[in-house]
């Protein structure tokens, strides 16, 4: 821990990692809250895994065809937006079972990614960093893109907070009052996709769901307003991200995995603690009544 704080003042890569933690925590708090209250974890999971396809194609174009703009991050962003559009289009038509379509997006996206990675010459180590993330490798261009995505998510959420609330809580009311459920549903999917891309930088695409849902799920047990839930979830995910980096830094553990383990432990502690508190509280009350 102390090594982390000493090195934080010396090394730019650690400062970048902390900055990445702050940027992802904001998106994570806002969008994670939507994912949790709308119960769309599986949608987020499908988008996250599909992102591998975009990363694989981008890496192939970069190495084989020399397209320098095709970085894993741009590939991931495009793939996530494409996945969100497919999911939005299919759910709008209402003709297919939603979870079937999500499974298809999930698996086909990954398959495309694996194929392109295998035909691209070079080391496979990149693959591991896509799957599990590497917050210590985030550079300045990635940070800039993350800041832009964050800004977009914040502006959209401030402008359409009430519309998002209506279509998530009472879609039929929204429809009767002339609010397009489809448009706002698609917008929420879009910002979910962008957030997934941000989070893959930190914890990788496999662990994204945990960082997206657990801080928001904890926040929902503590507060009863959606915007408060977003703030609390953002604060919690900031603590877990920075905490995870700091804990993993000394013993050279993988940062992404440590962040998720820390988040998961806190989640279990909160649920267990609340359970014990309520049981004790009820017990004390019934005891008082009995005497």
């Amino acid at each position, binding site marked *: 821990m102390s090594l982390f704080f000493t090195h934080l003042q010396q090394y730019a890569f650690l400062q970048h990692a902390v900055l990445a933690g702050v940027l992802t925590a904001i998106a994570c708090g806002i969008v994670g809250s939507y994912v949790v*209250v709308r*119960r769309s974890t599986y949608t987020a999971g499908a988008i996250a895994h599909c992102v591998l396809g975009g990363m694989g194609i981008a890496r192939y174009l970069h190495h084989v065809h020399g397209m320098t703009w095709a970085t894993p991050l741009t590939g991931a962003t495009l793939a996530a937006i494409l996945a969100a559009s497919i999911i939005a289009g299919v759910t709008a038509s209402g003709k297919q079972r939603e979870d079937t379509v999500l499974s298809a997006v999930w698996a086909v996206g990954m398959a495309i990614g694996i194929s392109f990675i295998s035909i691209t010459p070079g080391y496979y180590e990149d693959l591991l960093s896509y799957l599990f993330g590497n917050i210590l490798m985030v550079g300045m261009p990635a940070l800039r893109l993350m800041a832009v995505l964050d800004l977009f998510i914040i502006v959209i959420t*401030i*402008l*359409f*907070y*009430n*519309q998002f*609330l*209506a279509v*998530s*809580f*009472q879609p*039929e*009311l*929204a*429809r*009767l*009052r*002339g*609010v397009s459920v489809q448009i706002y549903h698609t917008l929420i999917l879009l910002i979910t996709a962008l957030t997934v891309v941000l989070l893959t930088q930190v914890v990788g695409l496999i662990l994204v769901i945990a960082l997206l849902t657990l801080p928001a799920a904890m926040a*929902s047990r503590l*507060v*009863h*307003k*959606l915007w*408060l*839930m977003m703030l609390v979830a953002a604060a919690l995910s900031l603590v877990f991200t920075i905490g995870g980096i700091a804990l993993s830094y000394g013993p050279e553990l993988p940062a992404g995995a440590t962040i998720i383990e820390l988040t998961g432990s806190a989640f279990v502690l909160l649920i267990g603690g609340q359970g014990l508190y309520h049981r004790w509280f009820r017990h004390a009350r019934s005891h008082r009544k009995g005497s």
Partner: protein
Amino acid sequence: MTEPVVQFNNVCFAYDQEEILHNITLTIRSGNMVAIVGPNGGGKSTLLRLMLGLITPIRGTVTLFSTPPEFARHRVAYVPQYLLFDPAFPITALDVVLLGRIGQHRIGAFRRADRAAAREALNQVSMAHLARRSFAGLSGGERQRIIIAQALIADPDLLLLDEPTANVDSRIEHQIYDLLNVLNQRMTIIVVSHNLSVVTRHASHVACVNRTASLLPLAELAETQRAAVHSGDMAVLQHELSCQIINPTESLRIPHHSGPVETNR
């Protein structure tokens, strides 16, 4: 005659193959308070959904304020049957009420006037003290009244309620119907209910819906029927009403249309 608010003209509706409503023709006028009664599965909720234009008839036309329902929705508020709310959704009672004004602002936050209207609506349903409470933590009856308040802040000309007292005790039920009588002075009200004795005491008209339907002013009920109404004897009343209003087996035999078919699809 006052302005027609809801008009059904030879309306039939079916989910897939099964016909739910058959040849419905009725007119509900401004200022009426109509109770829709009938057996489960008889098509009561379907009738409301047709009025809102949430579903379209397979035959016939439905008009709301003399236009297709989609164009008159801003004049209508709808209180659905016991809502399938996510009990874990983080939202306060006041915020639920405010959503009633969601159609009025395309962008940004609610205004101060909206908040004032929401508090006023909460006052009307005697729920102002619960404004800041979590909606999920309220009882069924409290939630129902919050949803009525949500309908009220849209300032509708027509209020539709689907079983608004299904989850409340009889004291709250009377409070809700007393409130509806007050509201009826400024808006037309249509309420679906299973409790005949209560609704017929408060309503001006009753419609018994069981695949077919027609509307009957309560003032024209014969003495025996009114006695049935006040004793709340469901079996007697249903028999009396259905004999007076319609002969179900007879009306179901009426073919869909003899003339050219009109639809508003």
